[in-house]
């Protein structure tokens, strides 16, 4: 169950262009969070909280890691927070990735830019369950690449950059491995990428993780809806998501 918690910042560092890794300590979150969930973080002086995915969990050390890109005021300010300071967050928020471990042998993780972090968390969980992981990670350019070696440790990893300055050149959909190799896919990244991926893999089942601007982050305000083929006609990203079956919502 989601709670309002304080997390202590143990480490903040820039690991790629404008991309910050932050290690946070909180036993409740570290014990209860599952991959795909996010924290709804309060940044001083800002009305709205910022949703940031949990990128990895260390249940023994009671820590979690988040990765975020400096794209605006809130993330810039968050990046300037110092070790030892406290962060207020609501979490663990959202549903997380769900899958039937027994039915999966090999899965594909397809991440774009700052959509990569939640997949890392998922990947570590998948391999613990004996599921093979192939990762395709897209970044804008060489400067932006992060976590390549961590994904390599999980399994085969293909890095793609828009401008070809590192790894393969092009979009992630240009460099997907043979579809026959895998049973399922998980993807997270910008909407155009998600559209391309779900199209390219339309004959496979998969899960997508979505982003939207949020108000409450708890399911009350209806800021973050996405049209869906259910009785209500919509789902809430903050509560029913951020992870949805690829055919469940209309992106």
């Amino acid at each position, binding site marked *: 169950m989601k709670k*309002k918690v304080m997390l202590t910042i143990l480490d903040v560092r820039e690991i790629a262009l404008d991309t910050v890794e932050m290690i946070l300590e909180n036993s409740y979150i570290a014990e209860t969070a599952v991959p795909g969930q996010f924290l709804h973080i309060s940044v001083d002086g800002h009305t709205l*909280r910022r949703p940031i995915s949990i990128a990895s969990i260390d249940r023994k050390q009671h820590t979690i890691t988040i990765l975020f890109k400096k794209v605006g005021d809130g993330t810039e300010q968050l990046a300037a927070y110092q070790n030892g300071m406290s962060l207020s967050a609501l979490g663990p928020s959202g549903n997380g990735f769900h899958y039937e471990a027994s039915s999966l042998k090999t899965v594909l993780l397809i991440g774009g830019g700052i959509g990569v972090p939640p997949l890392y968390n998922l990947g570590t969980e998948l391999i613990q369950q004996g599921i093979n992981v192939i990762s395709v990670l897209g970044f804008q350019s060489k400067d932006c690449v992060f976590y390549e070696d961590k994904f390599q440790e999980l399994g085969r990893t293909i890095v793609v950059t828009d401008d070809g300055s590192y790894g393969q050149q092009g979009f992630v959909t240009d460099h997907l491995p043979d579809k026959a190799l895998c049973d399922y896919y998980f993807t997270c990244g910008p909407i155009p990428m998600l559209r391309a991926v779900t199209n390219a893999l339309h004959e496979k089942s998969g899960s997508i993780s979505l982003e939207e601007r949020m108000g409450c982050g*708890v399911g009350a305000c*209806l*800021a973050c809806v996405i049209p869906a083929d259910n009785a209500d006609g919509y789902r809430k990203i903050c509560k029913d998501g951020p992870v949805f079956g690829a055919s469940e919502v209309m992106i």
Partner: protein
Amino acid sequence: MTDLTVDLPGLHLKNPIMPASGCFGFGREYSEFYDLNKLGAVIMKAATGERRYGNNTPRVAETPSGMLNAIGLQNPGVEKIIETEVPFLAEYDVPVIANIAGSTLEEYEKVAAAFNEAGSVSALELNISCPNVKEGGIQFGTNPEMAANVTNRVKKASNLPVYVKLSPNVADIIGMAKAVEEAGADGLSMINTLTGMQIHQGSRKPLLANKTGGLSGGAIKPVAIRMIYDVSQHVSIPIIGMGGIESAEDVLEFLLAGASAVAVGTANFQNPYVCPEIIDSLPGVLAKYGFQSVTDAIGKGHEDER
């Protein structure tokens, strides 16, 4: 012991704090954070005659000490609300206020009549001011005759006390308040959001899909205080105050201005516990400034009248 109770038409409030319409859904989500029995009342999200999907996303934007929203009255329709949401809230020992909206007089009447029959609802809040829906909403809220007309029709359609929620996007808020008072309103709710816009430099267009949205949060508090102060001198019906409330000190400022109770909106998003926290600190704040009870403080900011 500081007395926090307030009695308003149709509402016996154990304290003057309620979540504002649209910022609390129908209470389910926040009931996971705390016991809703702590609240003075609950104002439900707007109900319309039929289910509405609302606007495209993005629906919210952040502004200095505030936010813009253009949800667009998304709701499952009054029948579904009565079927599934009202019973959930009826379990609590807290008065429920139904916020009603519509694009036509007939829709308002229909929604009001439905809540009247349903029971378990203590009062209606007439949303004539939601600035996000193109048809109807904005005109009802900025034209005194139309506001009076819809008030009158809703009063006839139901026996429930009616609180008319005023829009701040007008030159003469006193005129609006008097018009709906004469038309039979039992109370006022004020203020709704100010119409605003944010333009995104990168995409070169308004950030909200709906282009304009309603400005709420601390940014609008001075406007709310001014309007409540002015209106309370010219009407004799009570006012539920709202607009940027974040603390018990803010609540006292609204009481002094002339509000008899208050609603907390945007602040719930920053802190889901904000309502119970305010309720817990209110007695101390009242005492600090020399008040024995909530009713003791109402309207006491009008120096001329003392």
